[in-house]
């Protein structure tokens, strides 16, 4: 009886620890919203205050509020530097089949391109290329690494 109780308590404690550690893990990274990366580890800058990339949720190509903000900054910079052309690279994480991810990368790059166009950037200044899952920035096999790899990156073409 007593032993049984102790065992049960131990189980509860273990369970609580697991829950806590799971939470702790999420908090300690603090770089994911849903599964979209919100950190700056891998971000480079096209100009001061103009991040070069935006991040996506798994299997999605919808732009988040933060992504739209980043792309508006890119559009403003492109309007100011009218001689610069860009390539938008679309990428996927490693958790999908190669061919589907090529298509998904293309869809993501075009989501970014379309948004830049609505902010006045001409289509002939923007080319897109999909790398699918072929060019990860983070080689980790965990949700945070994958979130950094689901991205579109704006690169100067000239």
């Amino acid at each position: 009886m007593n032993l049984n109780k102790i065992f049960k308590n131990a189980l509860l404690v273990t369970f609580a620890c697991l829950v806590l550690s799971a939470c702790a893990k999420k908090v300690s990274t603090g770089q994911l919203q849903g599964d979209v990366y919100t950190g700056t580890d891998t971000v480079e800058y096209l100009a001061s205050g103009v991040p070069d990339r935006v991040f996506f949720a798994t299997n999605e190509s919808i732009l988040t509020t933060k992504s739209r903000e980043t792309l508006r900054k890119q559009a403003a910079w492109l309007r100011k530097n009218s001689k610069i052309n860009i390539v938008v690279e679309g990428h996927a994480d490693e958790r999908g089949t190669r061919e589907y991810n090529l298509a998904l990368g293309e869809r993501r790059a075009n989501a970014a391109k379309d948004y830049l166009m609505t902010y006045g950037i001409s289509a002939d200044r923007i080319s897109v290329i999909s790398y699918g899952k072929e060019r990860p920035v983070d080689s980790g096999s965990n949700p945070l690494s994958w979130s950094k790899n689901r991205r579109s990156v704006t690169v100067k073409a000239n």
Partner: protein
Amino acid sequence: MFFRYLLILIFLIPINSFALIEVDITRGNLSPLPIAVSPLSLDKESKLNLKKISKKEDLGAEISTVVENNLKKSGLFNPLNKDSFLQKPNIAHLKPRFEDWALIKAQALITGKVTFVDEKLRVEFRLWDVLAAKEMMALAFTTVPNNWRRVGHIITDKIYERLTGEKGYFDTRVIYVAEEGPKTKRIKKLAIMDQDGFNTKYLTLGNELVLTPRFNPTNQMVTYLSYFRNLPRVYLLDIETGIQEVVGDFPGMTFAPRFSPDGKKIIMSFAKDGNSDIYTMDLENRIVERITNHPSIDTSPSYSPDGKYICFNSDRSGYQQIYIMKSDGSNVKRISFGKGLYGTPVWSPRGDLIAFTKLHKGKFYIGVMRTNGKGERLLTENFYQEAPSWSPNGRVLIFYRETKTDEKGEGFTAKLWSIDLTGYNERLVDTETDASDPSWSSLLSN
């Protein structure tokens, strides 16, 4: 440029025999057939001459080792230890003393003889039923000495066919992507090898990213995706001449190519403005046809062996699922309804099954389903694996598998694996480097 195929002449020596031993390949074979592969005998003079050409001490023994390894890897046969053989190879080939072979529990026996005449390799072999004390098959081949490994593969195909009643898959090759370097800067090259991992040749230098090579089922052409000049496009490569050309003139990425069963068309995806649809191009008249027209992603198309249907991958339901349609794009029907996401459908050369990759709860599976989507069967589960390709007889699938990296992001590998349709006999396929995207050729001979 890369290879020259030399005709292997096959002389059939007619024999009378009854259906004796049989191997059932439709079930997981838990008791592989004990078989004795006696080294092919080689006379002194031939041995000496062949040693000069092939740099092999005993080419007869080498050929029988090729046969033995093939049989063993098929999972259907258990080649017995040569140390236990009592009869000499040359005598066994003339007239086996069946009681000696029965004593070591062999049920089948392979014997043979190699001679070197007029610069040609002549190989003959016989298959014997030990318990019935009868010859089941006798064949001879003549070829150039450099083809000696292929002779071993052809012998295996003949034995497999005689004992299982189905064509073999040993005189075949696999084209794949050889990989090197860190995960973030992977270098990829096209590579081709014999089905057993020998005779690897690299077809590209690694200057540009290459993906998803696939054989033409009727000849030695290959189609693949190359990022040449940073423009991802489908290419056609003749592996005998090394000549390559871009397929079609598309204003955007083309990818996921495959040949039609008659080898006359390439079917692939074309991506534009965030939408991927399926197209075909006729290789003779260069006419391009659009097959799907849907705002979702449509990719990974694969024809049925009669060319009348196409299975493909689409996320038109919201997530990746498998669909089939008529080859003109009409009658689109979803066939995958199980839990999870489905990708990379490939139609079996036998026509009755579709192999696929499935992602469910963070695990990847290789599985098969009937062409109406019923009878889903998962063959293997892992952290990451995808892209099954069928052996030409539709009995084995080859695919690639990647490992999880550690906390430092290290320890990544990509390797080829094979598994029988039964779900048994899962094996690592030897490659010189890391490897992915395998595609199995048709039988090279017959």
